[in-house]
């Protein structure tokens, strides 16, 4: 019986992660590639440009612009840099291509666009009168929620159109520093720049050579032009604080995608670990260890890289904190697996980390490394606070994972008390670790709040919910001491309480949308979170039903650790 379930579970996990992996890795195959699709981009990628408040390689700019305009990481299988250059130099040809994301069926119906399409052409959208009218309306104005959602969507489309128009006009590629350190950089064509006449001629010539090489698909001309441009700009960009090694580091980060690499390795570790559970072989176990450790190394490398080129700890956005949550799950998992006797510890850690990192990679949250808003600057508490909170969430996520295993074990194999005890210990340990980190994280947050807002506690929804989460877990731990909660109860509670974490982490920002932690506010994803909660509820009910069917004898364990 249990063997059958284990195999089934393995298959489901493998199939679903495989499908998600395939979806996020796959690129659309192009129908027919233009001539410039084969040009070597290496030199062009590393051109430093100013965008979004900082200096970044052209590669990052292109990724951001393509993501913002199309809602995809690449289009027709083309590299974002190639796309951006094509938009800049072949604007006319792209005006009629369906590349601008609308993706809101309500809006499409309202403004008379085909309901089944997701992307439309710049020309078609700009000519759409109802859309332009909606864009001009004030989102803040009162009215039915549906109306304001329409307007908000319309304004998002407007922002995409504006960005694309800037790309078409060449205004996005700003290569020439301004005199003033806080000023706006200029494009090569703009007359007012810091360049001397000789430099100007050189820069212009190199830029034109690059353009002509691109348009005529001449590899030597394009790559040569890009190199000459880099050389010509180096002298003026260096005084403006451009560090070429950080720029190339960022290019490498973009190419390597260390966080994606991290979950791929964790996912492989999980698969191997599952196989090892059914077919225990020492080399397999070592390989599992090695893969998860490699994943951890990749995550660390990614964090260090991102920290270096962004100039601040990557803990400021939802994406970055999710990455840290995955990192924490791997870190705690690796440490725990050396101590815990439960063989499946490593697999559970790998599974939980994979799920979190895939979520970070595929969820529609902004993965851009952007400058910090003022309230997050000048302070180390950002790092302390977010890091400890994320470690707490990692531990609770692991506890939730272990809770599933434990609930299933107690339901289906009530006689295997040894295993159940091992799992129970692991679960309890995770809960304790999580509570320590959460308590510390809340306190660090309070200290920071006192430093930046002038009060350490103000019942802000985020503060309140993190306290609710802590109280929830404390209630479980104390309930366990009283004897109200036993092994099965602890397993179920670890799943129930994780819903509190989800509420604190996601719900406050995306559902309540109130309070001072406003830098994380957004919307969307309600459906997925709803499905998750529903699935967990179904799982718990199922386990409960199965457990209640089996004879009671032998189920109860003495909570021997209960006495203080």
């Amino acid at each position, binding site marked *: 019986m249990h063997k059958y379930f284990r195999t089934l579970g393995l298959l489901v996990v493998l199939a679903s992660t495989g499908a998600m992996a395939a979806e996020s890795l796959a690129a659309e195959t192009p129908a027919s590639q233009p001539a410039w699709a084969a040009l070597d981009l290496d030199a062009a990628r590393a051109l430093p440009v100013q965008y979004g408040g900082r200096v970044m390689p052209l590669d990052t700019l292109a990724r951001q612009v393509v993501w913002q305009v199309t809602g995809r990481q690449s289009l027709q299988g083309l590299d974002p840099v190639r796309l951006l250059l094509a938009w800049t130099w072949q604007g006319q040809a792209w005006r009629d291509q369906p590349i601008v994301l609308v993706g809101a069926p309500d809006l499409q119906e309202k403004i008379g666009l085909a309901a089944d399409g997701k992307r439309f052409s710049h020309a078609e959208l700009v000519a759409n009168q109802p859309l332009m009218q909606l864009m001009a309306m004030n989102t803040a104005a009162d009215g039915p929620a549906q109306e304001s959602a329409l307007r908000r969507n319309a304004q998002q489309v407007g922002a995409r159109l504006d960005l694309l128009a800037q790309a078409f006009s060449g205004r996005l590629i700003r290569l020439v520093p301004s005199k003033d350190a806080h000023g706006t950089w200029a494009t090569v064509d703009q007359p007012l720049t810091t360049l001397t006449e000789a430099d100007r001629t050189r820069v212009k010539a190199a830029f034109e050579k690059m353009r002509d090489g691109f348009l005529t698909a001449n590899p030597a001309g394009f790559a040569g032009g890009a190199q000459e441009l880099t050389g010509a700009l180096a002298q003026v960009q260096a005084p403006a604080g451009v560090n070429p090694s950080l720029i190339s580091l960022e290019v490498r980060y973009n190419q390597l995608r260390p966080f994606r690499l991290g979950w791929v390795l964790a996912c492989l570790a999980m698969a191997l670990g599952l196989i090892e559970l059914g077919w225990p072989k020492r080399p397999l176990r070592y390989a599992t260890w090695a893969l998860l450790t490699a994943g951890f190394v990749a995550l660390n490398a990614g964090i260090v890289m991102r920290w270096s080129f962004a100039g601040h700890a990557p803990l400021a956005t939802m994406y970055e904190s999710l990455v840290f949550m995955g990192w924490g799950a791997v870190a705690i998992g690796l440490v725990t697996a050396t*101590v815990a006797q439960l063989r499946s510890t490593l697999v559970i850690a790998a599974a939980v980390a994979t799920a979190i990192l895939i979520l970070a990679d595929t969820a529609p949250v902004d993965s851009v490394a952007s400058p910090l808003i003022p309230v997050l600057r000048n302070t180390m*508490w950002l790092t302390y606070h977010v890091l400890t909170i994320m470690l707490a969430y990692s531990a609770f996520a692991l506890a939730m994972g272990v809770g599933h295993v434990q609930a299933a074990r107690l339901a289906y194999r009530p006689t295997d008390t040894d295993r159940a*005890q091992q799992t129970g210990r692991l679960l309890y340990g995770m809960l304790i670790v999580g509570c320590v980190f959460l308590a510390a994280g809340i306190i660090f947050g*309070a200290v920071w709040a006192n430093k930046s807002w002038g009060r350490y506690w103000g*019942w802000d929804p985020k503060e309140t*919910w993190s306290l609710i989460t802590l109280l929830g877990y404390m209630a479980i731990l104390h309930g366990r001491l009283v004897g109200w909660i036993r092994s099965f109860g602890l397993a179920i509670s670890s799943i129930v309480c994780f819903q509190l974490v989800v509420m604190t982490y996601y719900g406050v920002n995306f559902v309540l949308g109130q309070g001072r932690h406003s830098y994380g506010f957004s919307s969307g994803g309600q459906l997925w979170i709803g499905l998750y909660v529903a699935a967990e509820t179904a799982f718990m009910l199922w386990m409960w039903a199965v457990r209640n069917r089996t004879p009671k004898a032998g189920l109860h*364990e*003495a909570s021997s650790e209960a006495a203080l």
Partner: protein
Amino acid sequence: MTLAIRQHLTRLGRSLASLRLAVVVLGTLAMVLAAATIYESKYGSPAAQRDIYQAAWFDLLLLLLGLNVVASAVVRWPWSPKLAGFAITHLAILMILGGCLSTRWLGVTGRVTIQEGGQENTVIQDPWVIRAAGHDGAALAEAQVPIQEPPRSPMKTHFSLANQAYQLEILRYLPDVEAKMQLVEGSPEDPAGILVEIQQPDGSDPHGPGMHGPGMQHWLLVDDTTRWALRSAGFSLFAASHYTAPAAPTTLPAKGTLVVTIDGQDHDVGVEQATAGPVAIGDGGTTLQVKEYYDRAVVMQKGKLREDPDKPMNPAVVVELTHDGKKERRTVFARFGDIRGMHGASGGDAVRLSLRHSMVADAGMKVVLVPQPGGWVLYEQKDARLLQQIPVQPGTPVTLQGMPVSLVISRQMPHARPGYLVTEKKDGDPANPQPAMEVQLTGPAGQQRDWLIWSQPAMFAAGKHALQLTFQRKQVSLPFTLRLDRFEMEQYPGTNMPAMYRSRLKVLDERQSEQRTAVIEMNKPLEYDGWSFFQSSYSLNGRQRVSILSASKDPGQPIVYWGSAMLILGTVIIAIQRLKAQYRGAAKTATTTAARVTSKKTVGADHA
């Protein structure tokens, strides 16, 4: 008997100390808080703060948690070293709870709003109060009466000011109102007031250019010729206790006379005399000099005047007034009075100026209504000539002879004073409401009922001296003053994304010989004299930048900080103890599995 009580107490202590209670309280608190956040997202933060977080029952819940923590620690006395983690953690929770209470009871938090170049020593707090201020002969006294937000009504509170006891009753509260100044029923010593409607028989605009629209109503108060009168170019309408016939074309000097009113005392100064040089007025050190004079003044940009021979008579002077050691420029029009704020200065009310000019005094139309027993008498005068003098009954129109309009007294009050006409606004801007409450102040010398409009001072006569009541937020004065030299906003290069907000300040402290220079940035507060100031927000007042700082003085903070440090220490100790116990337990299991399984089965059977 005592034994029984002791037993009861012991039982009570045990149940207070019980873990079961702990679980129940933790769970209840979690659920209450969850409900509170939903309440907050529905009704807003102030409502949640008032109804839940600041409510007494919530305090009781926290108190129960505190008692539980205390009791659970007490019953385990004496503590063995094993209980170190437990003791530290529970003591830490108590310290945090206690610190929070001292923050709430003793702490002050609020906002300080300073304009660039300006200075401020007032901290505006969140709670609502009614501020009562008044003179007790010489000294200025002040009281802040706390008011619930929103106030319950009817509600009575008491306060005393300058050794006099007052009762303040809130009769009605409206969350958002439209308040219009008009005349309301006054007390017996107040003069009479009327509402006059100007009607046009032929439908044309009766007032001529520059006047208000047709069919308008106007409140007139007897002997008030400025605020509660109608004055415009070539036409004036007011009520007076008696009518003085026009003097022979005038004795006023060519450029007119300035009437300077200081503390209710009028002083006449000839414009020509004051043009030559500063003229002393009264004996309080006030001087006045006329800088500019115009016959036909036209107002240009930035309040500058210009002479325009094509425009109608509009005599005006620009004066430099020195009063109380402060110098300010004011513009005074013969037709419109003293125009305040034309030079950006917020000229006080201590000195009022008006210009009497021969060309304006008796030129044009003048209609005066004089109360008589049983009615009113209307005097109509044009260019210093009396056209008609007829009795008027309220409700009966009187046709004017010098103008194609008629007047009707539509309402009259035997005793009137300025007050608010308050109407509730249902569809106002929710972000910027104008709350108001109707109050009745009872003092040793009578009572007065009136509206208090948010942040607008109102005078009340119920004591020996008049009181000024203001419905506003609670305010505290700092023992020092902050001056804002500069407010800086930095943007990330090439964008309008804010990068930093910064206030450059000076701390002016009379107790210190040196001025302290300070810079407040996000996450870099200024600490001074027990107070902390944080960059909170900013606003733009025209071209002026206004920095909004939050201020706090919090004696509970160190307690909370120490408690927090101990909490972290305690939980870490407990965690290590527990994890170690687990590890040991695990080691034991390996050897004694069989025995344990058997014993567990017995326990299980017991429970079943």
